[in-house]
């Protein structure tokens, strides 16, 4: 099958500091892929290379069927980039921003105006359309920012940390927007440092750490990597911890907590508790594996 984004052996250094040390990435058409990683992992650098802003040092990068080094201008016609900070023009109104972006993509004036109106409606910005963007809330500006990327039906949409700095409500708005985009068939590559966000939005997730893809797959595949559910036993002191660890062999110790694998059923949990019946346990919690666990494990 032909991937919309294909990256092989991508390397990039700034001076003698390697930032990307051989990235592999494939994104299928019409899916949402997430690049997940902490600050400084190389997420933004990857997006900048894929969107032609930076040249790779080595490797093959094909976006929407076009090589980014060989024909960057062709790639730019097919993609749209929404950067880390809202790059909307605050002095102009929302509508003016959209029309300007359409004109810069060489649409006729009439078509640019039409698309602007349609996007204002789609992104719930009609009421604010003719106000300056400096009066918008963070969420509105971010919605406009994403809308600006859609003026000319891109094949691939890059969203670099689309919800960083947004309040929870605005974040939810952006999530809904991305979900809708995915449903409309556009291929989306987003970067995020929020595991919840990747879990919720992305079909496939690549965990980026120290310039490499540390793990990749669907959210479920990644969670399966670290096994099933665990019971956490919080103990009052070292002596109790030692006693509990002796009874439950193979558990993982974390401070005064002991994590033990379980199948998540009531019977399974009861079984664990019965084994430690003689040890004072302060608190019990059942954990489903989260992407945080995956993240901590693969980046450890």
């Amino acid at each position, binding site marked *: 099958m032909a991937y919309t984004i294909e990256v092989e052996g991508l390397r990039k250094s700034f001076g003698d500091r390697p930032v990307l040390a051989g990235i592999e990435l494939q994104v299928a058409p019409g899916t949402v892929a997430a690049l997940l990683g902490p600050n400084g992992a190389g997420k933004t650098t990857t997006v900048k290379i894929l969107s*032609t802003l930076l040249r790779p040092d080595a490797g093959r990068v094909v976006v929407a069927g076009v090589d980014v080094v060989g024909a960057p201008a062709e790639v730019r016609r097919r993609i749209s980039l929404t950067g880390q*900070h809202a*790059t909307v023009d605050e002095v*102009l109104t929302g509508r003016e921003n959209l029309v*300007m972006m359409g004109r810069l993509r*060489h649409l006729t004036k009439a078509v640019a105006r039409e698309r602007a109106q349609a996007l204002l409606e789609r992104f719930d910005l009609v009421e604010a359309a003719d106000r300056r963007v400096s009066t918008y809330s963070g969420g509105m500006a971010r919605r406009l920012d994403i809308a600006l990327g859609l003026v000319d039906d891109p094949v691939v949409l890059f969203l670099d940390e689309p919800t960083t700095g947004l309040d929870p409500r605005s974040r939810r708005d952006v999530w809904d927007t991305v979900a809708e985009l995915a449903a409309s068939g556009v291929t989306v590559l987003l970067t995020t440092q929020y595991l919840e966000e990747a879990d919720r939005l992305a079909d496939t997730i690549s965990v980026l750490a120290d310039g490499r893809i540390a793990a990749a797959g669907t959210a479920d595949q990644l969670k399966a990597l670290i096994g099933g559910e665990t019971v956490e036993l919080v103990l009052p002191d070292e002596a109790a911890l030692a006693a509990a660890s002796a009874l439950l062999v193979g558990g993982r110790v974390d401070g005064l907590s002991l994590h033990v694998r379980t199948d998540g059923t009531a019977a399974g949990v009861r079984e664990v508790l019965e084994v430690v019946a003689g040890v004072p346990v302060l608190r019990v919690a059942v954990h489903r594996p989260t992407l945080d666990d995956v993240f901590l494990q693969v980046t450890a």
Partner: protein
Amino acid sequence: MSAYSKTPGPLLDVAVLLGRSLRHSARSVDATISAIVLPLLILCVFVFVFGGAIDRGGEYLTYVVPGVIVLCAAFGTASTAVAVNQDMTTGVIDRLRSLPVVGSAVLAGHVVASVVRNVVSTAVVVAVAVALGFRPVASLPDWLAVLGLLVLFMAGVSALSAAFGLLVSSAEAAGGLSFVLLFLPYVSSGFVPPETMPAVLRGFAAHQPMTPLIESVRALLLGTPVGSSAWLTVAWWGGFGVLGAVAAGLLFRRRAR
């Protein structure tokens, strides 16, 4: 009918980005006020404050107006550095770079907008000078020549400013250029004749690139022989314009973040 415009891409890009810059100018009230008021203040300071003390053996107003025109044009066009730098630090440049827009169009949009702004504020300065008693004897072709030289100068300073704006890391640093350009005209023939300056400054004042421009504007407006100063102006500022455009073009594509 195609959804795409038939206008060649680069021309359309320049027109769209020019529109954007002019909207910015029109909407930033403080910038517009300073672009108009500052030149007038400078003119009044020279005419009414210093004018009485500087004896040129003639009307000082007549002598100083060309200098003030150039000073204001230099100061005004240097703001291009700040505008370009803001586009860079706010990510607008990155966004434009990810579009099928040629880099030179982004630059040209800023430069043309700066020229338009400054032609307007120059017109205000000239109008007020005339109201104060400045009596140019220039014919229409002379006026057009003055306009042409000033536009060339404004475009040259704007292109250099754009390159400077791409080079420095903050708007504050970019703003510093305005002050350099605000002081440079003082060490020229614009306000006092270079012969009255100490030897160290005299050579610089007589030959620095703003001097032939000021001399040309003065000669054209007052009907005295222009001599070689017009060609020197074209050579200096045409050269700076090309230099600035090439540097800004390279910086625009190379700039990593």
